[in-house]
Structure formats: structure tokens, C-alpha cells
């Protein structure tokens, strides 16, 4: 130890270069790992967010539609035509978002439930051979991530009403109107 402290010899240029290049190589490797971790964190956040929003939206739709007394599937253009002068509630897909429109007896309130919806792969539909079942399929896409929920719901109130009503309208469309 005493010797090392008293040693007047320095480090040669060659040693310094080798040491620096080793440090450089290690730094590059660690930096790549850091970048990878960062990227995974980012896409994980995207995936989490679209899942959460889509789940929230589908739950909201199912909850409302399940207890509906009347349900009609219609196109967005038809919906816009009749919305102003009707007292129904609506869910509709427009401009890559899902909206809910609620009429409280005096005013109509529009709420955006989720954005980043991929319209080609999202719709409200009838289920073949079943009169009181409603199907909803929503696909969400943000940046590099996508998530899809496709489910059916029984319309409970339809059973209690006599004669049993049916789901009216087109077989596949981007809007529904219902009576809560």
C-alpha cells in the first residue's frame, strides 16, 4: 500500500484508452437496457390505459342496456336526425369516440366515454336467432397498442313485458337508442 502511494509512475496512454473503451462498452449496454425498460414502461401504460377506458365504457353500456325497456339499433345519421326531438337515451360511435346522450326530461346531456376507438371494428349488433340479446363489440387503438371487448347481454326487462319486445333496427350499426 505504501508502495502504491509513493509510486511516481502514471498510466500509459494505451491503458487509458483500453479502460475508457471498456467503460464505453458497458455504458452502451446499460443504456440500451435502460432504453428498453423505458419503452416497455411506455407501451405498458398505453395498454393499461386503453384497457381501463374500454372496460369502463363497456360496463357502462351493459349496465344501462341490461335494464332497458326498449332497444333499437340505428345508424349514426338516423340518430342525429331524430335526437333533437326525442326523449330516448343514446350510445353512439362517432369520430373514433363512444358517446352517451342522456335525456333527463328537460335537457340532453352528451358525455364522451372513450376516445381512440377504431370504428371499422366496433359496432352494436343483434344476435342471430335471439330476440332479447344484444351484442356490443368495441376495439380501442392507441399508438402501438390495441384491445378489444366483444360481449353479449341479456335484456332482462324484455322478459317481463308481454308480448316480449325484440331488438329493433339494423343488424349492425354504430348507434343505439334505448328507454331506461
Amino acid at each position, binding site marked *: 500500500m505504501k508502495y502504491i502511494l509513493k509510486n511516481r509512475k502514471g498510466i500509459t496512454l494505451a491503458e487509458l484508452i483500453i479502460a475508457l473503451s471498456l467503460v464505453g462498452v458497458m455504458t452502451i449496454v446499460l443504456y440500451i437496457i435502460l432504453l428498453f425498460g423505458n419503452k416497455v414502461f411506455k407501451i405498458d401504460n398505453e395498454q393499461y390505459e386503453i*384497457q381501463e377506458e374500454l372496460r369502463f365504457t363497456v360496463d357502462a353500456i351493459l349496465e344501462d342496456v341490461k335494464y332497458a325497456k326498449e332497444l333499437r339499433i340505428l345508424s349514426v345519421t338516423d340518430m342525429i336526425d331524430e335526437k333533437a326531438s326525442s326523449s330516448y337515451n343514446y350510445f353512439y360511435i362517432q369520430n373514433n369516440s363512444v358517446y352517451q346522450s342522456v335525456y333527463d326530461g328537460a335537457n340532453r346531456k352528451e358525455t364522451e366515454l372513450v376516445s381512440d376507438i377504431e370504428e371499422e371494428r366496433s359496432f352494436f349488433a343483434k344476435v342471430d336467432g335471439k330476440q332479447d340479446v344484444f351484442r356490443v363489440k368495441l376495439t380501442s387503438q392507441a399508438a402501438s397498442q390495441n384491445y378489444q371487448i366483444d*360481449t353479449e347481454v*341479456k335484456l332482462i326487462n324484455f322478459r317481463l313485458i308481454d308480448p316480449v319486445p325484440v331488438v329493433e333496427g339494423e343488424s349492425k350499426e354504430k348507434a343505439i337508442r334505448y328507454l331506461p
Partner: protein
Amino acid sequence: MTYGNNGGKHMENIIRQSKGFTLLEVILGIAIIGIISIGIIPILSNSFLLTTRSGQRSDRIYDARESTENMFYDNSGDHSVKIPKKLNFKFRNTEFSVEGQEIKTEVPMNPSGTITIKSFQPN
């Protein structure tokens, strides 16, 4: 091997010697770095895997709910079975029982596990 006794000859030898690493040593070194990074990468990507899996899980939950409802109304649930069951209730001194069926829905999860929903339908 202390430096003091041999007048620093040992250190000098290390620096002066013209031997490099053998190919085998380099390969071993790279392999060790590789093994360590294989250990680190799953830690970084695990959260994404778990998020994806929770997404599949909620998907299966929707399936199970749908199947249970179908079974409840018209016995058409793909993943459900009906098992006769009797529920017993006791309120203070009054005891009564309800005959019915338990609707049990099991949806398999990928890669392992199942989503189970149990419901009761009185006769």
C-alpha cells in the same frame, strides 16, 4: 503477493506482459454478460406481460358473465353447468330452505388457471 517486497516487479510484469485475453476468455465473458442481461430483461418486460394477461382475464370474465346469463335464461351457456342445490336460511328461530340450481361457470385462462362464477337460480 505484496508489492513492497519485490520492488514493484509484479505490477510491472502485469503491465509489460504482452499476453492478451484468449478467445475462450472473451467468449466466456460475453456469455456471462448475456446470462446477466437475460436475467434483467424479464424484470423490465414483466409489467407489460401482466397487463396483457389482466386484459385477457377481463375478456374471460365477460365470457363467463355472458355464459352464466345465458344459462340462467335458456340453458344455453357454453361454459356453464347446472347443479341441483338447496340453500338453507336461518332468521332467529325460523328456518327455511330454497330448492334450486347452482349455475357454475368455468372459463379456462391462457396459459393457466380458470375464471369461476357461481350463481343460484331458485326453482
